[in-house]
């Protein structure tokens, strides 16, 4: 554990260093993934963001504060009234004299209850409204972050912020902050009340303050780094559990049960150990607070003794002072303990503000490349087939510095053309597809689109990575086109052959699907992705291995659905199965990050280059023994019947 004070600027500096140098600021864990977490706001930025959020609710904030002050002040009348009763007894008044202070106690109780209820409800209205605005702003910015940035941070970072951090801040707003406010008010007003009884009571009570202040500082200094480590350990435990439980079938198949149980035990136990260190720290903190309590209480009792002896105060006043101080234990303890919650809520808030205050993207959502609207002036409807829809020039890219995956790529996609990208795994197909789709910002060169971008997003990307959004199926589809009618949705589903099973769901297209709803098969999910593409209706579509996981029979069906989904669009298709290449207008062959061949399927096959070799490898295994008639129409008999092609 370091002795460094809690300092958010250190995190910040590391982040910035990572931005500048790429590698050096990253995870130093041996073999660990190169992670570059999303930014965390500095305390100053966080404060500014909170001020900004509070500004529209100044009136509410002032009213809430005023009512809470009133409520606390009313409550503090209790101890002097009890003191008055002690005095009445000490002065041997008749029992009837007690009626008035007792009745006043009752009135105080009612008044305190009513004002507290009002005050708390004002404070929570303020907190909840501000919180709702914060989380909405966060989700807004989070969804608009460049995908590249999110991937660099690991998808867990954003998910953790949107779940754990938001709920941590919400929890603080709901419980810790009102409690803290009440405690602080009680403390301040009780001290004022002690001074009103006699200033010397206040001086006595304040003797406890140095011990408390020192304790709080000591605690925060030690707790912050410890909690950071606890969070890391809890994250590692969670990840290991997901790994082992999610992969249980694989664990069993490879007989890795013992190893995985060991891994879980290790991770879980290190989380337990760190928690226990935190517990020991908190308990030492309480011990020190007990010292402060005793110091203050003894001092107040001694002050009472001296003041009563010298005739400056009545016994009732001394009693009230002692009761005041005893009544301070609760608020002081909760205020100091809540520092803890406030601290972690503060850290969570800084992570949220770090995202909401991140610089926005220059152009349309999710788009990292420049949209140069060269032909944008023309009437889009008049643009004839053959005009350049996408122009890629001098494009280069590297995920890791010094490991370029794409070099100097030039490519023109003509309007309405269907181009297939072909090449071995790792040739750079996916990278090129992502750059064209605007997911990544190119390291060198540019991607220019000649399509008007005012009508939604000009390029859509459908990848293998699919997701069904939790909720009714219709709502999922409407994400692609919010104003779509049910008929539009049905039509899109019909185009990808998904209407039949969608209608057969228990509530048709209103059936709740996704997490917590009905589970869909991978093929159904893939079809939904294609239906979304139809609804989004972009002029340019990029498809990346969208059919690879469906198995052979399923792949064919999905391929024809995909074909219908990209009808009428300029399409770049990463062809995993060469049948996708054979039906494309042009084929682009990539190898080691470069384009090595471009041309129509037949041209390239005739040219006898790399594509011809690929096609042979493909058709050889498939068609060597295939009698003529059942061959697909575009297979060249000369090739397919030639057995010595390898």
């Amino acid at each position, binding site marked *: 554990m370091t002795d460094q004070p809690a300092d958010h600027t250190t995190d910040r500096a590391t982040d910035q260093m990572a931005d500048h140098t790429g590698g050096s600021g990253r995870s130093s864990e041996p*073999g660990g993934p190169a992670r570059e977490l999303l930014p965390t706001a500095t305390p100053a930025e966080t404060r500014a963001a909170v001020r900004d959020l509070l500004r529209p609710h100044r009136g509410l904030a002032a009213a809430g504060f005023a009512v809470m002050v009133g409520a606390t002040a009313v*409550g503090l009348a209790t101890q002097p009234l009890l003191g008055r009763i*002690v005095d009445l007894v000490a002065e041997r*008044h008749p029992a009837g004299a*007690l009626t008035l202070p007792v009745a006043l*106690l*009752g009135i105080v*109780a*009612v008044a305190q209850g009513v*004002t507290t209820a009002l*005050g*708390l409800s004002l404070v*929570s209205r303020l907190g*909840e409204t501000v919180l709702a605005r914060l*989380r909405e702003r966060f*989700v*807004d910015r989070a*969804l*608009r972050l460049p995908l590249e940035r999110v991937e660099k941070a690991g*998808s867990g970072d*954003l998910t953790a912020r*949107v779940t754990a951090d938001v709920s941590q801040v919400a929890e603080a707003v709901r419980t810790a902050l009102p409690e803290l406010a009440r405690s602080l008010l009680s403390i301040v007003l009780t001290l004022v009340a002690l001074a009103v009884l006699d200033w010397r009571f206040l001086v006595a009570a304040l003797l406890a303050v140095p011990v408390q202040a020192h304790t709080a500082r000591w605690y925060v200094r030690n707790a912050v780094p410890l909690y950071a480590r606890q969070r890391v350990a809890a994250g590692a435990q969670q990840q290991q559990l*997901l790994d082992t*439980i999610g992969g249980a*079938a694989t664990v*069993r*198949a*490879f007989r*890795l049960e013992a190893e*995985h149980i060991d891994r879980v*035990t290790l991770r879980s136990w290190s989380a337990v150990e760190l928690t*226990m260190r935190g*517990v020991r720290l908190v308990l030492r903190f*309480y*011990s020190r607070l*007990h010292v402060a309590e005793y110091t203050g209480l*003894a001092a107040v009792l001694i002050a009472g003794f001296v003041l*009563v002896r010298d005739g400056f105060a009545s016994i009732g006043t001394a*009693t009230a002072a002692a009761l005041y101080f*005893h009544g301070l234990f609760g608020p002081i303890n909760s205020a100091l303990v809540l520092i803890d919650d406030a601290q972690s809520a503060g850290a969570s808030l800084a992570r949220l503000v770090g995202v909401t205050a991140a610089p926005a993207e220059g152009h349309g959502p999710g788009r990292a490349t420049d949209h140069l609207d060269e032909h944008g002036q023309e009437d889009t409807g008049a643009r004839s087939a053959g005009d350049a829809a996408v122009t890629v020039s001098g494009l280069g890219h590297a*995920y890791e510095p010094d*490991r370029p995956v794409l070099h100097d790529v030039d490519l023109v996609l003509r309007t309405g053309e269907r181009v297939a990208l072909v090449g*071995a*795994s*790792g040739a750079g197909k996916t990278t090129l597809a992502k750059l064209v*789709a605007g997911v990544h910002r190119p390291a060198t060169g540019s991607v220019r689109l000649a399509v008007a971008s005012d009508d939604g997003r000009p390029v*859509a990307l459908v990848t293998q990575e699919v*997701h069904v*959004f*939790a909720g009714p199926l219709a709502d999922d589809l*409407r994400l*692609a086109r919010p104003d779509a009618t049910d008929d539009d949705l049905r039509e899109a589903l019909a185009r990808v052959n998904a209407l039949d099973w969608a209608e057969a769901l228990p509530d048709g297209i209103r059936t709740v699907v996704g*997490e917590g709803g009905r589970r869909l098969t991978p093929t159904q999910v893939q079809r939904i992705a294609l239906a*979304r593409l139809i609804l989004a209706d972009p002029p340019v579509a990029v498809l990346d291995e969208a059919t690879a*996981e469906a198995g052979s*029979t399923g*792949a064919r069906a999905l391929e024809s659905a995909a074909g219908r989904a990209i009808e009428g669009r300029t399409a770049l298709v990463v062809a995993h199965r060469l049948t996708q290449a054979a039906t494309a207008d042009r084929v682009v062959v990539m190898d080691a990050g470069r384009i090595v061949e471009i041309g129509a399927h037949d041209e390239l096959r005739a040219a006898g280059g790399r594509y011809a070799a690929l096609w042979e490898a493909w058709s050889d*295994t498939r*068609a060597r023994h295939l009698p003529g008639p*059942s061959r697909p129409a575009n297979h060249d008999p000369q090739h397919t019947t030639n057995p010595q092609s390898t």
Partner: protein
Amino acid sequence: MGGSGPSGRDVLRQAIKGQRRDVALGSLLGAGHQAGEALVPVLIGVVIDQAVAGGDATSLLVWLAVLAVVYVGLSFSFRFGARAGERAAEQAAHILRVRLVTRVVDPRGGAEDGRLPGALTSIATEDAKRVGTVAMAVMFGFSALMGLLVGAVVLLRISIPLGLVVLVGTPVLLLAGHLLSKPLERRSEAEQERTAHASGVAADLVTGLRVLKGIGAESAAVARYRRTSRDSLVATLRAARAEAVQNGLVLTLTGVFIAVVALVGGRLAVEGDISLGQLVSAVGLALFLLGPLEVFSWVNTDFAQARASATRIAGVLAAPPGVEPGGARLPERLRGALRLRGVGHGSLRGIDLDVAPGEVLGVAATDPADATALLRCLSRQADPDTGVIELDGVPLRDLDPADVRTAMLVAEHDADLFEGTLRGNVAAAASDPEAVLAAMAAAGADEVALAVPRGGDTAVSERGRSLSGGQRQRVALARALAADRPVLVVHDPTTAVDAVTEARIAAGVRDLRRGRTTILVTTSPALLAVADRVALLDGGRIADTGPHADLVERHAAYRTAVLS
């Protein structure tokens, strides 16, 4: 864990019993702490009475010293008592977590049926923690009881009527508070669910971020979240108002109760039945006793939550196993002969198939469901409904599933990679480092290692998501080959691999598995072409067997499944 595992009650009892030393220590010290806290207001009264009212300095010093001793005692008992309690809670949760994972990965399977990985993980973290908390709850409950007893004894010794007023009044007060807030609580629960829903929607949208970006649906998604967030805000505000009213109500009731105590105590003091100091102590104790009684109510809530969590945990621990182990043993030296007779399961309708030792057999299924059903039976995730599968003449049903898998590896199509390095993943089940290199070369995973930043030492994160689909498949296949099992069954290992690499992998697998039984369940012609023989699985039956080339000529169904 037999067929019928523990009940929720057993889980709860074991969690406490397993930590009985810490729970006992914590309860004892916690009781000491509560007794100390109860004595503080009593001592304040004594100081007022003996020292302040009488002006006796010696008595002041004596009683302050007593107060100091009480403080030292209560402080230490709290510190070490709470530490023991927390330790018990954490350890109980840890033990449950490990037990749960042990059950989930148990060779007999069955624990994850009908449960999503996320839900199981949450049971292993959140529910285990809640059950662990019971250890703390027991300790706090016992301590609070102790505090209550000390308070009661002192009060009754001061004055029986006043003591009775306080002892009857405090529970009545708390009960009234709870009764009044009950309807509010129920409402707030429903509203909390709405809030949780909003958080779920946000997480779901972020999970689908790539999809949203792909179709440019960010704005639509933001608009949807804003609606959910607003709905949840309305609900939360209602709940918060209810809670504020409840707080105010409790404050009022407490204040009225103190007024009643002051009235009764004051009258008794006026009549000389109790001293001034005793009046002060009584008022202080009345306030103090609310604490322990509050503890009882949250201990109750903790127990209710823990019971629900324990039931969920017991549900996993007692999940019926997918298959039951038999008592038979496999021969020491395995030949690797498989014999299927009349196997029916799922969509399978009586499969008869013989695989000779050392044979490379292709299985091409026209319906993916048939392939899945066959693989489930071969890996003993399920036993066939009819018929029998024999390995070297021993029915799989009579074997321990763990033994089956040691002899025969069924590498599933969607096999997960684990956290660790690329090479570490391949070597996971390998006994021989040589085998790892050979397997990586055969599966084309050596090329994957060349393509990633740190070669074989590159970390694989998020269950292999950091690799592309084709890379992931090649690493998974290399792992299956490196395990070097007498019998290997692989399912669609190259669906995301390009044609050239696939052909090379087919040859590599063929070479590496020479002389050992290997079954390739796939519709890839590249793989089927290297098999000695291919079985066509059509309509839940073996329709034909023969070399790939022959089947291509003989069967239209085979051509449709495999070619085009």
